[in-house]
């Protein structure tokens, strides 16, 4: 019936949508507020039959209603409700009541009574259910009136005995959302006919319905209980038994909710003691719950299995012996105990022999088992994860892997045990699962040291053709501890194989070896002669410096040598040369080394201790020095700024930690310098026509300052509002400069007036936005302007320009406070490298895909902001917005963009280069300062207009890469 009704409602709904001309009067209605309720009333009166009425109501529901008129509308609806005989119309009215009471600013307490009254003589169960839903909405809208709640709860209790499941569902939902645990309820005896009598609380009423005949009601009861828990009420421990019974319900949604319930209770009462049925023993509740949920991992429904597997991960209080059981699966063959393959592998490893696996009966069972001790259905957690990881559905497997991860992070011994299972998952048939298990292993890798055979399995995955898998694995190897030098050698060999097979992995492999080396210096030491192929007596040929494999080996060795001072003695001459070359070309991979003798003193002076602090100090001092600029004469001041900017830029290059801050300061100072130059030009003292050239340079300077301020604002992360204010202040100065310059060109008064107005608006918005920062801006340009503001807004443009000119020239440099942590957003395009001489050939009119691989650092929300720009030699440029799925996040503040851009062009006669670069899009409306847009409950057609201050644009933030392409004319 309900489905039928719904279908009908939808049919009607779609009919309404197809009448577009109805939209126009609707707008009118909205403008003339009082007519809203009246219009509805007229409509409803006009309706001759229920279908019409329903149509009107449906139409009505699509428009928002003003807060003031809600009550009137509600009255009309209720009035009509009593008259209406058709169920579907009453249902719609009931749902409208609920919607209306959600209107912001409307307090629905005045309609509570009416709504409850309607329940009294309602016959249709569907409408009753909808009315209960409405009451629920009303109740949630009135959190501060316990009296209303109490009434609603009583109403709900009364209707709990309804024969229709929907009504019972809604009542339970209402109890869950509104029920209070502190005020006990008197159960309505007549209504229920059970003389339980006396005081009962919400929980026991809800738990009565755990045994309802309808599975939907049982689910609703469990959900209501969970809702109570979410609202911060303590669920009684007695519920535990009932919930456990529901774990074996026939219906999956009940079992699923029961799993959640048991989980909640295990968190509330972990230490309570529960008896084990059919024995005298007792165990902790959390262990019992863990066992029961583990059991659900082999449930018949995969939804329940997913739920159970997920839940297991967060039960961290469980005792270790139960936890370890989850990985236990006693193997048995013909009633003899058999060792698992994992155990066998371990044994072979300890006995020093590598897996032979050549014998047929290699895994022949040994000891005879006592038939009584074999427990086939393990009562408890036995083998839960073994099952979960072998499940048919990959959703379950992923959930199990995640749960393993969570549990392993909190228990080192468990991490050790689950290692084998995780390594096995590397071989899953679904890539997502493989990837997930690699990530998990990385996360728990602090706890573990890989054995050689395990490492072997892990490394086998390096040949995977999926790039994501390989990169995840590289990341894993970065964090892995290995136990022997053979392991290091094995890893190196496999990585070199990987490099050989997939040359694009170069950077990732090198990075991987860097960590490998610095992690295991003592294991690398005995390998050095072999790795560098040095010989005690003979000179060996010098390896090719451009060979990525050789570089990889060197990266490993140099990083190990960093903490192993004896190692450099084993290097041959060319190794030192190669070191100095690599130290320069790949400084992020090769650490500074303290190398002895040989006339090559490569001791790095920059890497003394406390270098960061000293650099910080230097930065601070430079800024302080700049602040004395006011006292200097013009040429001196300019020189000082010049030098400071140069110093800061160099500092940024040397000290990567401070690069962001130094760059930021330098750019800021550059703005100041430009401004200063522009203002101190002689042009201000000359007649306008005489200094056209200077005028042009000043205009350019103003434009450049504006651009720089946008960069300052959007390219750097970690700014606080103080810095933003400072940046805006500079921008304002630049705008003032622009205004003055326009005034001087005399392009007509109209344009001047409008730009004056615009400028005044800018000042106002500045004042609005940075109200809290104004005290810090004393004696600045803005401060002075704001003092003069009343005069400014009334005077003529020419006068205004004059005032501006003097204030601008008088105002000094605003002291920049050094921000705490500041990072510049950077992007590096790894691919295309731009080195290829072979043009990419394609037929004109068709497209060619260009693979782009780039790393982004410190970019916020790259999915929305980062764009790819392609510049063709004819000046044509395309901006491509990569898909959100193309961005991966390998680490904090780091993103990786792997995407394809499609190129196309008309035919060229010969190959030429295009430029590819990354752009950072910004818009000032997207900053936190603008107000978040608010959406009504109905339509979002007339959303807020974009604020007039919104500025949108893009900043190129990567080096452009040139790609050689050649569109050929199509052959006929």
């Amino acid at each position, binding site marked *: 019936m309900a489905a039928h009704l719904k279908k009908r409602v939808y049919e009607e709904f779609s009919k309404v949508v197809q009448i577009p001309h109805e939209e126009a009067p609707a707008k009118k209605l909205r403008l003339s507020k009082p007519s809203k309720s009246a219009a509805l009333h007229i409509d409803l009166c006009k309706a001759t039959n229920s279908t019409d009425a329903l149509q009107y109501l449906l139409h009505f529901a699509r428009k928002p209603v003003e807060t003031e008129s809600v009550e009137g509308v509600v009255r009309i609806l209720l009035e009509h409700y009593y008259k209406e005989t058709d169920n579907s119309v009453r249902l719609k009215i009931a749902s409208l009541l609920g919607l209306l009471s959600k209107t912001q600013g409307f307090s629905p307490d005045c309609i509570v009574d009416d709504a409850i009254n309607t329940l009294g003589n309602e016959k249709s169960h569907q409408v009753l259910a909808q009315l209960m839903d409405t009451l629920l909405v009303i109740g949630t809208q009135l959190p501060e009136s316990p009296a209303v709640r109490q009434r609603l709860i009583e109403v709900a209790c009364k209707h709990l005995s309804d024969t229709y499941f929907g009504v019972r569902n809604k009542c339970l939902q209402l109890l869950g959302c509104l029920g209070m645990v502190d005020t006990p309820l008197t159960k309505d005896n007549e209504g*229920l006919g059970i003389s339980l009598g006396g005081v009962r609380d919400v929980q026991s009423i809800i738990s009565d319905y755990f*045994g309802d005949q309808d599975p939907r009601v049982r689910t609703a009861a469990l959900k209501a209980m969970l809702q109570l828990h979410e609202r911060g009420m303590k669920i009684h421990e007695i519920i535990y038994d009932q919930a456990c019974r529901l774990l074996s319900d026939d219906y999956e949604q009940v079992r699923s909710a029961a799993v959640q319930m048991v989980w909640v209770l295990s968190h509330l009462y972990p230490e309570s003691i529960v008896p084990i049925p059919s024995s005298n023993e007792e165990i902790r509740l959390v262990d019992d719950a863990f066992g029961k949920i583990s059991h659900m991992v082999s449930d018949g429904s995969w939804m329940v299995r997913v739920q159970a597997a997920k839940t297991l991960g967060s039960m961290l209080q469980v005792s270790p012996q139960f936890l370890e059981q989850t990985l236990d699966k006693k193997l048995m063959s013909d009633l003899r105990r058999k060792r*698992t393959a994992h155990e066998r592998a371990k044994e072979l490893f300890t006995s020093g022999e590598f897996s032979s696996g*050549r014998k047929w009966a290699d895994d022949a069972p040994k000891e005879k088992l006592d038939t009584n001790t074999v427990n*086939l*259905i393990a009562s408890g957690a036995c083998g839960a994860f073994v099952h979960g990881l*072998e499940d048919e559905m990959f959703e379950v497997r992923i959930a199990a892997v995640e749960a393993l991860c969570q549990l392993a992070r909190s228990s080192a011994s468990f991490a050790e045990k689950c290692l084998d299972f995780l390594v096995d998952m590397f*071989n899953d048939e679904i890539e997502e699962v493989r990837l997930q298990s690699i990530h998990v292993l990385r996360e728990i890798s602090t706890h573990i040291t890989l054995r050689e055979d395990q490492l072997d399995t892990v490394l086998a995955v390096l040949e995977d053709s999926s790039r994501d898998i390989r990169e995840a694995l590289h990341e894993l190897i970065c964090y892995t501890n290995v136990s022997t030098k053979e392991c290091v050698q094995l890893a190196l060999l496999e990585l070199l194989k990987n490099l050989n*097979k997939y040359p694009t992995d170069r950077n990732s492999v090198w990075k991987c070896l860097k960590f490998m080396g610095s992690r295991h210096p003592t294991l690398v030491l005995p390998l050095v002669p072999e790795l560098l192929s040095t010989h005690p007596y003979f000179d060996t040929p010098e390896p090719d410096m451009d060979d990525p494999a050789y570089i990889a080996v060197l990266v490993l060795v140099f990083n190990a040598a960093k903490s192993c001072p004896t190692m450099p003695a084993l290097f041959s001459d060319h190794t030192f040369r190669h070191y100095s070359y690599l130290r320069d070309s790949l400084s992020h991979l090769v650490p500074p080394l303290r190398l002895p003798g040989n006339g090559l003193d490569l001791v790095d002076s920059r890497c003394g201790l406390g270098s960061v602090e000293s650099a910080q100090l230097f930065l601070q001092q430079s800024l302080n020095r700049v602040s004395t600029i006011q006292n200097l004469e013009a040429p001196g001041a300019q020189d000082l700024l010049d030098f400071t900017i140069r110093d800061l830029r160099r500092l940024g290059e040397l000290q990567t930690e401070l690069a962001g801050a130094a760059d930021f300061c330098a750019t800021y100072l550059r703005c100041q310098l430009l401004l200063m130059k522009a203002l101190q030009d002689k042009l201000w003292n000359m007649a306008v026509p005489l200094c056209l050239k200077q005028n042009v340079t000043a205009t350019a300077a103003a434009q450049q300052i504006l651009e720089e301020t946008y960069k300052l604002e959007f390219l750097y992360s970690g700014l606080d509002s103080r810095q933003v204010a400072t940046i805006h202040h500079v921008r304002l100065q630049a705008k003032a400069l622009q205004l003055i310059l326009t005034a001087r060109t005399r392009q007509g008064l109209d344009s001047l007036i409008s730009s004056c107005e615009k400028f005044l608006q800018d000042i106002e918005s500045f004042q609005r936005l940075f109200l809290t920062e104004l005290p810090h801006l004393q004696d600045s340009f803005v401060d002075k302007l704001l003092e003069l503001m009343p005069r400014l807004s009334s005077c003529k443009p020419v006068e205004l320009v004059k005032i501006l000119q003097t204030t601008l020239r008088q105002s000094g440099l605003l002291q920049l406070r050094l921000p705490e942590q500041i990072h510049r957003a950077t992007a590096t395009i790894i691919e295309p490298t731009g080195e290829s001489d072979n043009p990419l050939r394609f037929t004109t009119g068709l497209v060619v895909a260009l693979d782009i691989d780039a790393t982004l650092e410190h970019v916020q929300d790259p999915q929305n902001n980062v764009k790819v720009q392609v510049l063709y030699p004819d000046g044509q440029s395309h901006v491509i917005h990569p898909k959100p799925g193309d961005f991966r996040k390998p680490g904090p503040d780091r993103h990786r963009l792997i995407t394809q851009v499609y190129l196309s062009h008309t035919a060229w006669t010969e190959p030429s280069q295009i430029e590819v670069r990354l752009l950072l899009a910004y818009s000032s409306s997207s900053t936190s300062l603008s107000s978040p847009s608010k959406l009504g409950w109905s339509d979002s057609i007339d959303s807020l207009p974009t604020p007039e201050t919104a500025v949108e644009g893009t900043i190129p933030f990567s080096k452009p890469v040139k790609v050689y392409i050649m569109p050929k004319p199509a052959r006929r």
Partner: protein
Amino acid sequence: MPEIKVTPLGAGQDVGRSCILVSIGGKNIMLDCGMHMGYNDDRRFPDFSYITQNGRLTDFLDCVIISHFHLDHCGALPFMSEMVGYDGPIYMTHPTKAICPILLEDFRKITVDKKGETNFFTSQMIKDCMKKVVPLNLHQTVQVDDELEIKAYYAGHVLGAAMVHIKVGSESVVYTGDYNMTPDRHLGAAWIDKCRPDILISESTYATTIRDSKRCRERDFLKKVHESIERGGKVLIPVFALGRAQELCILLETFWERMNLKAPIYFSTGLTEKANHYYKLFITWTNQKIRKTFVQRNMFEFKHIKAFDRSYADNPGPMVVFATPGMLHAGQSLQIFKKWAGNEKNMVIMPGYCVQGTIGHKILNGQRKLEMEGRSTLDVKLQVEYMSFSAHADAKGIMQLIRMAEPRNMLLVHGEAVKMEFLKGKIEQEFSIDCYMPANGETVTVTTNPSVPVDISLNLLKREMALGGPLPDPKKPRTMHGTLIMKENSLKLVSSEQALKELGLNEHQLRFTCRVQLQDPHSDTDTLHRIYTHLKSVLKGYTIQHLPDGTVMVESIVIKVSSSTEDPNTKVLLLSWSYQDEDLGSFLSTLLKKGLPSGLC
């Protein structure tokens, strides 16, 4: 009491020749009709004379259900239907129907053409037999006749393997066939809903084994193949044409894809090619991964696996070859083995069990010198690996299935007696249900307690609802009054008035009367009044009336008082009630027998 009878004709405490007879609710059903691989005489097929000595089976069987296409489950089918004679319906799933005749034909060829047997079924018989087959879909309830219905569930094991739920009225039996509870590379895990059958007939091949994780085995297998290929060696994998072969193909195919390997993989042709074609078609019967990705690419359309030609065996460079048969006792696999055995870089992987006496068995046991026909010896230098891939449920899996289906009784077939004994003990202990393991020809009888459906009149139900509590509680039985009418095979429960009307009978009133003597010195009217007040205080919530004609009415019970003739102090109370008020009446009589409390006025 109704009974269900189960008689295995084959597979009772044995593996092979699966054939189980079930009589349920007056219907006779044959489950599977297989052959035994171990025999070449009459014992090869089930003993159909058990059903009828002479004459056709059609009169005695209502239907035959085949669980999957393995010959030990369907090998005797043409013999039974065409040579013994059976014309009734044969049920099997679509893939089974497609692949079964290929295997039967192959079986026929080997027995007739190679071994030269006569009196065996012909190709035409196989075709005729297949015409009688009615295909089944998963979870589709098929009505065999008005009372008998069957429903198939997914069983894993091989493509198209099914478990069947057979139901007559409220009695039901589930037969599992062969099943697998752990998913593999091409098939999912067996699944059944909580159908609570009276008997669950389950296979028990691995009754005493708990297997290691599938992943370890797969990983080992792949690693061995990969290493050998990297060394430049050739790998031979002897397989039987259907089932495991496809799983291993997928395993290798995906591995090749993932690892970007280039070495060729060959599959020796034959009936496999035809079968592979069906694997491509029945995608819905495979596992999640294959089902989800087949739109982009059908996993059975192998990119790296090509058909094998005899001449390829001598090609240089690494390669992997799947060849039949699986035990290296004859055919192509043996030929290739002979060619490759001399090189230690090569490898042979045995993916399954090998019967004693075959070369497979010998080399697995470490024999390095083999005597070939013609007195030549063969030095085995290649590596020999054993890797078990089996698709039967292990002990844990069987227990898991029992937990899923919640049967009332358990019956084990398709396994060895000793092993069954162990599992039987475990099942009885864990689930406390009866477990049977009949031998061939032995009948197990299980009495059932079927519920009898009765129509109840709506009026009666509504009346009872109004009387009782708020909601009917399905978990608790409740008594109600009504009349059961049995008429023309239908049962009806109606109110007594309606029954009288329907049957055209007059209503007879039945009243109980009872005298209670009471010592009371007061006058009759006073006593009556005292009784009235007493009852009023005891029976709250009942209507009690003191009528002017000198009686007290409690609901419909009449109480009168008269003095005894001998002793005026002894009052005789006359109670009378109709049989409907029996409860209240007897309560009142016992209450009044105790006498009136003295404190009454």
